[in-house]
């Protein structure tokens, strides 16, 4: 049997895993002489036109089926539960304003955030408390996780459309309707 190349090993490692693997971890695995970042880019290009893609999420990588194939895959898949509007908005606020305290989320939405709403997001693995704000009461601040990037196919938080651009969009354009 041939000696496999580092790229083949990398490919197999990523393929075998269900969860994204960190670049540092992969570099550790393959040893110092291998330039993992280059190989990952190469692999990503190899798969660019295939039914499966190598996705980057900040410093982690994972194989995922291509989004455009999705409509043809639906075979008795259980539809995941839809997020409530409150949960989705809270998630968006955390994504855009992280690190953000519960009080700040409430100020933006103009309504109390139930602990249940945060619990749902924590349970999904998309947000996590991280650190405290150096302010009276030292409130906990919330941030999004790696799993959030993975779930919403974001290579980084910069992939989110900019809020000020959204503010400028024709929000109250009559065409959008009420």
């Amino acid at each position, binding site marked *: 049997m041939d000696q496999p190349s580092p790229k083949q090993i990398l490919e197999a490692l990523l393929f075998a895993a269900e969860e994204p693997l960190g670049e540092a971890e992969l570099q550790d695995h393959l040893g110092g002489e291998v330039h993992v970042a280059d190989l990952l880019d190469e692999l990503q290009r190899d798969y660019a036109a295939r039914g499966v893609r190598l996705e980057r999420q900040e410093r982690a990588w994972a194989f995922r089926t291509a989004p455009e194939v999705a409509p043809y895959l639906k075979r008795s898949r259980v539809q995941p539960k839809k997020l409530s509007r409150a949960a989705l908005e809270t998630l968006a606020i955390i994504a855009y304003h992280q690190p953000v305290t519960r009080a700040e989320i409430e100020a933006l939405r103009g309504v109390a955030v139930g602990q249940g709403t945060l619990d749902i997001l924590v349970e999904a693995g998309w947000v996590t408390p991280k650190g405290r704000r150096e302010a009276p009461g030292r409130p906990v601040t919330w941030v999004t996780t790696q799993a959030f990037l993975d779930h919403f196919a974001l290579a980084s938080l910069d992939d989110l459309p900019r809020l000020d651009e959204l*503010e400028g969009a024709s929000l*109250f354009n009559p065409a959008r309707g009420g």
Partner: protein
Amino acid sequence: MSDPAADPSTFVVDLDGFEGPLDLLLELARAQKVDLARISILALAEQFLAYLRRVQARQLQIAAEYLVMAAWLAYLKSQLLLPPAEREMEDAEAAAEDLTDRLRRLEALRLAAEMLQARPQLGVARFARGLPEPVEVTVTPLWRAGLGELFVAYGQVMRRGKPLRMTMPARRLVSVEAALQRLSQLLTGHDWRELRTFLPEDLGEPLLRRSAIASGLIASLELAKQGQIELQQTAPFGPIMIRRRSS
């Protein structure tokens, strides 16, 4: 939901559908069908108040945050209608602008939330490997210890070898049983008397005295529970009065 008494052009929705007063304001603003920059806060305040009045007329519960917003909007409206010289509010226009900004920010976030939801989500539009192959991970522990810890551990072991002798002096305390017996015997009449007067008098040692007070109190509670006596204390830390219950 239609309300025949209401102006048919006004917006009528169930309050339950809203995520708080800002959300309701946003919905009302949308109904104005103009750019948010040109929205009339005056008209918006009027609509918000009218809306709440209609909800109140149906005798539905209104959450506190809506009422707070309504009060503030009513105040803001009154200030905006006054000539600047007569206003109590320093900057009514600025307050109105702040509200516009908040609405615009919320609308942008709402749009962002929609866009987030529209992304190809994992398990919906993208799938992970269905048959992951477990990769064996061997963990090699690298043991660490410091010389200081080693010495401390040794010293503690060697000291453990020579056990310390410790003696606990026997203490004289007043038991609850003794207090019960004393109280039952001494409490005869039906007049209120202070619990303290039933304590034994020959208690020199403070600890013994405190134990007598404690067991006396427990004994009185026990007797009250049994229905034999009544207890009364008119103020915190005030004297505790007891008397035999008249049968």
